[in-house]
Every structure is written in C-alpha cells, then in structure tokens.
C-alpha cells in the first residue's frame, strides 16, 4: 500500500502528511498577526478572497513558536468541512511511501507531539514526522 505525502521543513525538522488533504501551497504570503490571539496562531491571510487562519506548527506542538518575519510559506489544508493554513519554513518533495516504511510514532515521540504525530516514516530524504491534520482543526 502506497501513500503520497507532501513533505516540508519546520525548524529544520522534516514533516509530512497525506497529499489528499493538501490543496494548495503558497510561498511568500503576508500573514497578518491578530492581536491577543493564541500563541499557536500565526495570524490570518487572504487566499483568493477568503480569510484563512494560519497556524504555527512548532507552537502547536509545544515547541517554541516562530517569529513572524516578513512573508511566509503556507500550505492550505482541508478536511470535509473546514480549512486552515499551516505556516512552514520550506516546502520539500512529494514522496511515495509504502506502508512498510511507516511505523508508530510512540517509539520516537511522546507528549504533545505524539498527539499530532501518530506515525513516522522513513525515506531517502530522511526521517519524516507524519502529521494528523484532523487534530489541527480542533480549536483549543
């Protein structure tokens, strides 16, 4: 069984998620920080007439959030009913991963990170943390 994942880098760590949920990538967008908003929210962005909430992945995972410096790279992610944007450092490749290369993340991670990253994958490009994006849509 093969799945296609879109990979990206955040804080020098490689992440990925099923490409079916990734609908768009935009480099160089200006994210507007909303005063008094939660730390893991980078801000809002205009994507073709729609206001999208941009989340800061490191902050969500409980790591240090990134300062909003200039323009950002975002990935627009969608599930059945909602959509958000994830702020990342850089977009990497689209990879085909076979199920034998995927394993349970509990062997490698714990705590908050494990909540969002249930699985990890091995690839030629390195060790990929597979994000469960459904968790992103939950407002905390």
């Amino acid at each position, binding site marked *: 069984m093969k799945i296609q994942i879109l990979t990206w880098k955040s804080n020098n760590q490689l992440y990925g998620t099923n490409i079916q949920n990734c609908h768009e990538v935009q480099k160089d967008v*200006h994210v*507007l920080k*909303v*005063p*008094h*908003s*939660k730390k893991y*929210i980078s801000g*809002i*962005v*205009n994507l*073709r*007439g*729609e*206001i*999208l*909430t941009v*989340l800061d992945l490191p902050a969500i995972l409980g790591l240090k959030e990134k300062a909003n410096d200039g323009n950002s790279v975002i990935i627009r992610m969608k599930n059945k009913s*909602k959509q*958000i944007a994830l702020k990342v450092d850089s977009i990497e490749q689209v990879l085909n991963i076979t199920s034998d290369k995927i394993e349970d993340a509990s062997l490698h991670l714990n705590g908050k990170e494990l909540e969002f990253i249930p699985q990890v994958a091995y690839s030629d490009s390195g060790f990929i943390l597979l994000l469960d994006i459904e968790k992103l849509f939950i*407002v905390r």
Partner: protein
Amino acid sequence: MSKIEALLAEYLSECREILSKAEENVLELENRFDQETVNSLFRYIHTVKGNSGIFEFKNLFRLSHLLENLLGQLREKKISITKELIDLLLCSIDRIKNMLNNIAEESSIPIDDLVERIKNFGIEKQTLSIENKPTDPNLTVKQRKIPDEFAKLAQEKKQNLFVIYFDLHQQKFPFITDFFDYTNQFSDWILHKEIIEENVLFLEEEKEDSVPYYLVILSPISMNEFLQKYPLEVIETFSIYEIIPSNVAESTPQLDIKKNTESNQETHIKVRISLLDDLINLVGETIITRNQLLQRFSLTNDSEEGIVLSRLSQLITQMHDKVMHTRLQELNLIYQRINRVVRDTARTLNKEVNLKMEGGEVELDKTMIDVIGDSIIHIIRNSMDHGLESIEDRTKLGKNPIGTIRLSAMLQSGNVQLIIEDDGRGISPEFIKNSAIKKGVISTEQASKMSDEEVIDLIFLPGFSTASQVTDVSGRGVGMDVVRTSFKKLGGSVKLYTKVGQGMKIVASLPQTVSVVSCLFIKTDDMRLAIYRKNIIELIQFEDDKYSFVNNHEMYNFRDRMIPVVNLRKLLFPEEAYKRPQLLVIVQTDIYYYGILFDEMIEFQEIVVKPLGEFFTELKMFSGATIMGDGEPVIIIDVTGIGEFASLPTMSSIKQELKQVVSRSFDLNGYLLFISSGEFFASNSTSVICIEKVERSSIEYLSGKEVIQYRDTIIPVRRIEHILQIPEKESKFTYAFLIIISVDKEFIGILVDEIVDVVKEVTILDIKDNPHNFILGQSIINKTSTLILDLHKMFKKMSNTESNQRKISL
C-alpha cells in the same frame, strides 16, 4: 450521486415541501372549513402516497393511503372538522415527516397507533353520516329528528344549518334568564330549541342536575364562526348543511388540479442553494477586484477609462445588491412554524392564546431566517409559559382570558425590526434580582447599585432561567443568551421592555442582507483596522486639555460630556511604548458610548465582511475581517467587544459613577469651591482635569520643588498660598486634595485642604485695584467671602516666570 440517490433526494425535498403546505392547510381548517383547502390537502396527501409507492416505502404508503381515505370522507362531508380530527391529521403529518427525515429506518417507524385512530375515526363518524343532500328525509341526530323542511330552507336561503347540543347548567350564566338574554343575540337564527326531557344517552356522564338542551341554528355564518362569536360550552355539534363560499361546490375536485399548479409555476423557480452561494462568492470576489482596480486607477472622471470604470463599478454594486436579494425569503416561512408551535404549546399548557402575526411578507436573508426562527420560537414559548397567566388568573385580574401574543416585522432603512409582545404578567426587576443573587450571578452589593434596566438585562446572561422548574416547553436548549448572541452575530441586537402586570415586549433588529457595509479604516501603530460606520458618531482631533483621568478611567470631554476613551494602541499592543494619539472617533452601541484614540485615519470604504474563523471566536473585540484593495486582510473591530475588553464603563454606569467620584460630574461651566489654609476660594472649572484625594505624606521633593506621583508621571505640586503670599495653615488631616490642571500640555497639581462644592453660577464682584489677571474678583457664596480665581492663568504665569517672585498685596 447515483440516479436513484438523486431521485430520492428530490423526492424527499418535494415531500417535505408538500407536507409543509399540508400542515398549513390543516391549521387553516381548524379555524374555518373551506372546501378548497380540503381539496388541496387531499391532493397533497395523494401525491405523497403516490411517490412513496414508487420507492416502496410501505409504512409511508399505508399511512398516507389511510389518511387520503380519511380526507376523502372529509371532502365529501361524511365527517366534520373537530379538534380530534385536526389532532389526528397533524399527528399523522408529523409521523410522515419523521419517516422522511429518517428514511433509512422508515420501515421500523411504527404507525399502528395512527392506523387504529384513523380507522376508528372513519367508523365512528360513519354511523352518523350526514349527507349533503337537502332532499334526504329523516336526518336524525342522535334520535332527534330534524324536519327536512329545515334542510330545504337552508338550501333555499343558502345558509348554514347546524345543531348545537349543550348542558344548560354548564354554561357560564348564573341564571337561566341570563342565558336566554344571551341567545337573544342570535334569536333570528334559532329555528328550534328544545330541552331534552328524557335523559338521552348523549351525555356521557349523566349528572343529576344537568339540563340537556339543543338549538337548531340557521345562520349566514358557518358553524365554527358562530361558535367563535357566541362561545358556549358545547357538548356536541353537528353540521347539517354548509355553505361553500365559491361556486366550486358544483365542480368535482379532480378538475381543480391544473388550476392550482399553473399559477405557482409562472412566478417562481427552484434553485439549488449551493448554486446561489457560488454566485455570491463570485460577486464578492468581483467586488474586491473592482476595489483593487479603483485603487490603481485613482480616477478623474474626465478620462475615458475613468468613465467606463465608474460605470462598471456601479453595475457591480447593483449586481451585488440583486444577488444578495436572491437569498431573501419571506418571514412567512417561520410564521407558519410559529403558528403550529403556538397551537401545540397552548394545548400543552392549557392556555388560550390569540396569536397575531404581521409583516410576514418582510424578507430576510435565508441563512438568517433559519437562525432567528429558533430564537423567535423560544421567546414566544417563554411568553406563553412564563409570561401569560393561566385562564383563571387572567379572569381574576380582569384581563381577557385569552392571552395575546403579537409578532410583527417591519423593514426600516435596511434593517428588519421584529417585535414580539405579550400582555402577560411582565417581568419584575425584583424577582430577577433575587433570582440572580440566589444563583450567585451577582452579589447583593452589586444588585443594589443596578438600575432596573440593567437588572432586566441580566436575563441575557448564560444559564439564567428564572423558571422554578425547567418546563419541557421553554426551559432548555435555546436560552435568552443564545438569542442575543445569535442576533449579535448577524449584526443585529435585542432589547427587552417590560411592565409588571402588563406584559413584555422584545424588539430585535437585524440588517436585511449580509452584504456590503461601509467602514472607516484607521491606523494605529502601523496596523490597519476597520470600524463599522453605523457605530460612528463623530471623528475629531485629539486635544490634550480635553483628556483626563477620573477614578482610574481615561475620560475625554466631548461636547461638555465626559465620556470614557480607550487608547487603541495600548489596548492592542500593550508592550509598545506610549505614543500620543492624534485622532479620536466617538462610537456608540446599545450599551456603550465612548471614544477610541488612534493614530491615523485612512478613509471610508464599502467592504464585504468575511468571518475571521472559529479560532478567533473568543476574541470579542474583533468581529470579522475584510480584504483591502491591495489584497491585504484587515480586521474589523467590534465596538461592544472593545468596550468589554477594556472594561469600559457602560452608559448607565457612567452616570452613576460620576456621581460618586469626588470631583462629581461638575458642569464645566461652573465653579469649583475649595478651602486652603482657612481661606475660601473658587475657580472656574474649565481647565480642571480632575481632583484627587492624596496623602500629604506622598508629596516628595525633587530639586527643592514639591512633586507627587500622578498616573505614570511625576507632576509638580503647587500651592495657592505661595502665589498669593498668604500664610500656610497646618491642616489637622493627613490627606489633602490635588486639583489637577493642564498648563502648556503639562499637568500641575494644586494642593488644597478641602473641596467644598461645585456651583453653576457665581456673582463676581470686582476688586478695586486688582493687578492680577488671575484674580477674577470676589463673591459671597454660602454666606462666606470667597476669592474667585482663574487657576489656569494663575499657574501659567508662574510656569513662565518661575524666578519672578512677585509680591502681591490684596
């Protein structure tokens, strides 16, 4: 979606529509028999039956088939309209609705109870079948023979013939003579009246003192209308001959099908909602792109491009307006639902309610109608449950035993105004106060300070239900807090008015369309923000001397009114250094009236409002966002939200507080009276910013001069005694008062012993040979000689001429 699924979806949608209309018909029939209504009801059920047959929904088919039979009998007048029949019809329609909503489990939804009832209905009534043929002899009504001349007469005169059975003793009249007086009102219509001598079986429980009686009435009005007009405690009624208003009586029902459907098809067309939504999104984006174009093209109307662009811009605005109107639907949609709810609720509560609904043709955006429908129903249920008193109580109070609930809608300058009022017992502020204290919502202390309006407003707090038991009718689910939030989210508002003993009125207003709004764009700390134009009262330049600090609130003197202000920069970016604001916008909502200080004004613009998203719902100070011409998002601030976030005093609390503040709400055209070192002084108060009570020990020395800490800075302390060169008298109190004025954009505190009062007018007597412009004169106030000063001038001079110690002789 496969063909079958698509077909099923269409079937369900169609059936729902049909059932909705059928329910409407049934409710109409409850009030008035109308052949046409019965016919169309029959056709609706017939359609539902047919459709369900196609999909082999067996239960649905069976139920609708039996219902169709029942309606057939009604159509042919073999049975008549009674409360039980209406109940049965409504119950059946509900059951069918239920089956449609759970179509997958349709076969497991029981219908046997209804089947039984329908069957029994038919049978019972059939034994009393009265045919609408006037020539039929021996029309008997429970062993009473009604001569057929009566029926002939009815046919000739074209009037309604019916029989009413009742028990004389059960009527509301204390004496039989009163009853006969009562019947005199319609004596012309009484063909026959008779006391039934033998105790006939028709009385279910034969009571010893009952007097069975019947009237045969021939009247131009229908039996139902008659009974409404002349209410009697009837046991049974039988309609023998009924007049049908139009000439449809002659034609057979089937032929009418064409007539009805044709008229509907010409004026309206069904459109998928998703298609309309797409259309609206496209128009929204067109507007944004237009704005971008307009920005780049700062036009002069003479240029050719300018003219074309201007025209294009107009067309786009018009198009947007029309498209937004496609989503408008008549309020009648909810009115029907409400009708049903009121009827059912009245039955449950055993109350009589007269529901008046007006303005059903007023239109509202579809998304809004769904949302407010629930709110309106909640309010009405509340009125019926808690507002309206029971029938006995009302009669005791001399009120009409039938309570009135009035729902009216009106379009007023782009806003839909809904009024829901009842003539019940109203809401008592005392009751609410006590209930709130008991629930721990407010403390007894807080309660004592609240005005009646504020107390009533407590109803809108979450979890606040004063019902002593949460009744099934109105106690759960939607609460008044949800009602208010729903309306607020849609850009509207809800207000409650009440008079104890008289009733309650709720006024809710909503913008008609979720469309283009006008906003003011401002900048603070390089961030652009938008404020809804409808909140803005005025825009002014910030002037330092109008700004002051009273009791820990920042205030501004706006046209001789002290209003609270909030520094936007400080509020949004608390870590940033203080910067003097340039501009001030006065804003207003239901409960707030205040000013927002900011740096720059950009412009007014019409924009399309977009939701911020659920990640921001807790940030009450922001209410949405929009996209600017340059593609950048801009946040729209919520004036009420900012008021709450900054803990600004509300309009009513300001009035109260200012009374308590030491300086009071002094009239800025008045005079401040004070005492220092035993001498009485008065100063005009225009320059006074505020008065603070201070501890004398908090005065410090800096480079040999007296200073004190005031807000975030140190200000100099001055004494009048020094200027006037009068001896300082030691005060026995540890505290003193500081009159703070602003001189040359700096604050100075003038130390005095006591503040006496503020007076509006003072008669100033000139002092001979007065060399000083800061002494305005003298006066006798409260029998005491008082020196009138102009503090501003007094200390202004001193600031400039510090070194000049001028000797003053009085």
